[in-house]
């Protein structure tokens, strides 16, 4: 009887039988990479669905703790295994503390290897204590992104500079926009 009920209720779940491509579209509509990643707990079927999302857009909407947001970005990048991402967006509009350059360097490195479409990175505009000098702003180096078609960087912080690679070409690039706010 228990088995019968189990089986009958299971038949109701049709959504899990949709092709991955459609499930990706559904997960993108969640508008949150962490929410998409949480579906991996649902069942074995769902475990790897989010890891092949064709785009990753992370925004610190309503997220107050910078560590939570940075962990979400790192977790999302580590979990994604799409060889050619059509977009990677990381936007910080709410967190105000500076982000360590080494961390950003890892994101840019990921972007350079995996993104075949748009790269969008917006770092915090006004660090809480820019003058205290606890954290010396290291310059950022933009690695060669041979497959990206658009790069939009807003590195936001006073003394930080963006360095371009000495050699090589951004082969696929159509649009580049970078802002260094002072």
């Amino acid at each position, binding site marked *: 009887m228990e088995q019968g009920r189990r089986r009958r209720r299971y038949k109701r779940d049709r959504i899990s039988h949709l092709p991955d491509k459609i499930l990706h579209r559904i997960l993108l509509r969640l508008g949150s990479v962490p929410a998409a990643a949480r579906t991996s707990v649902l*069942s074995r079927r769902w475990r790897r669905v989010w890891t092949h999302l064709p785009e990753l857009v992370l925004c610190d909407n309503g997220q107050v703790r910078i560590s939570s947001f940075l962990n979400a970005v*790192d977790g999302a990048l580590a979990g994604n295994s799409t060889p050619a991402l059509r977009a990677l967006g990381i936007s910080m509009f709410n967190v105000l503390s500076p982000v360590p350059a080494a961390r950003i360097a890892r994101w840019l490195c990921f972007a350079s290897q995996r993104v075949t479409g748009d790269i969008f990175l917006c770092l915090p505009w006004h660090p809480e204590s820019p003058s205290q000098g606890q954290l010396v702003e290291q310059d950022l180096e933009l690695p060669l992104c041979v497959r990206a078609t658009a790069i939009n960087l807003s590195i936001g912080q006073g003394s930080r500079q963006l360095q371009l690679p000495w050699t090589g070409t951004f082969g696929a690039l159509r649009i580049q926009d970078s802002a260094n706010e002072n």
Partner: protein
Amino acid sequence: MAAPESGDGNNGAARMVTLISSDNTRFEVEAAAASLSQTLQLTILDGGGGGGDGIPLPNVDSATLSKVLEYCIKHAPAAANGGAPNATAVDRAELERFDNEFVNIDQSVLYSLIMAAHNLEIEGLQSLVAKKVADMIKGKSPMEIRRTLGFPDPTPEEQAEMNAHMLEYGWAYE
């Protein structure tokens, strides 16, 4: 019989096309409505589907096709206006009301509709059904999502697996 017109020849009676479902039911609809399907659009532009021919749709049954066409007929006028940039607020509200009502359906019907929207490449409908499923998932805990989607209750082993998995994905729950 009028020659098939390309372009937006809207004079006089609207051109009709026939679609044939997998279970052999024939549906006659305005070409403009059927053309919301990217898959059908080229065939229709080439003059297909008129007269006694009909376009066979081996992947879509009659119940689903009837539902799909209900959507297309409702949305065709706005689509003909190029996404209706000059539609009135009343028109848009009416379409939104229709859309909400339209996807208020049983999950098995929703599944067939999603597959059909995908096979026929009807952009607006694909977006509508994706949003519907996303709304079923949004803001819920994994257990609530499982219940909403109609999963069986987890076995103790599955539950243990889920707990371990949630620990591993701590960053997604912060």
